[in-house]
């Protein structure tokens, strides 16, 4: 069988790639995609913990499903804001959205 550590390292690497994407990219849509990657990394961890440490308690899966719901809500509102931003400012580059600085 696969050791638990493989899953955890893979999830950590995926999380870090998403983290880099969030910090480095300028395009708001890609930032949201990177957030999805991070949430998926978390989900891998949750399910791996459920499977390896406590497989006969269903709460690990329930938690993962709640993460699904949260991810969907986040993406729906996030993209709606991006579209609204584009409509008003004609850009979705987060570098140029600096109204709050004034």
């Amino acid at each position, binding site marked *: 069988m696969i050791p638990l550590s493989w899953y955890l390292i893979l999830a950590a690497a995926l999380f*870090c790639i998403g983290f880099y994407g969030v910090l480095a990219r300028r395009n708001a849509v890609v930032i949201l995609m990177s957030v999805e990657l991070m949430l998926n990394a978390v989900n891998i961890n949750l399910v791996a913990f459920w499977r390896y440490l406590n497989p006969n308690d269903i709460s690990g899966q329930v938690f993962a499903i709640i993460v699904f719901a949260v991810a969907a809500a986040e993406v*729906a509102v996030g993209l709606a804001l991006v579209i609204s931003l584009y409509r008003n400012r004609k*850009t979705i580059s987060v570098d140029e959205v600096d109204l709050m600085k004034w």
Partner: protein
Amino acid sequence: MSTVQIVFLFVGFMILLAAWMMVSRSNLVHSALWLVVALFGVAVLFVLLEAGYLAVIQVLVYIGAIAILMIFAVMLTRGDVESLTHITNRYAGWAAVMGAFLLFGLVIVLGQWPAFQTTSPEAIESANPVLDLGMAFVSPDGFTVPFIVASVLLLAAFIGAIYAAFPRKKGE
């Protein structure tokens, strides 16, 4: 090396490659398609973890809905011409350093945790995990409150997203 391990390594490599391509492509649609590959890989991991229901909803929700939503959003915003030339902001180098540092730290911290050494899981006793899931969602000593709160959260996201995305009528 068992067969399952080879499958895992292959899928894991595919996920990381796809994730990296996703954050480094300048073409936004390509980014979204690489995201789909990565998400599909995660679904395969769920299968390996014997969480079939999660694998299926991973495909249904992420590939069927979220990826489509992403591509629609890309099309609606047309992409900045500028961002095709330099796709990262000026902190990209620092972000890479911080990401690598984070990965390093995570692996170190995880390595000191005793459960990190777990190699083989116990068998799942439940005959039908999906049924257990359904019971857990609605039984009073289970997850009734999260179940209802999830629907309220979705309602809030629904209304909020429509309010934000829908163009205002004049005088509103």
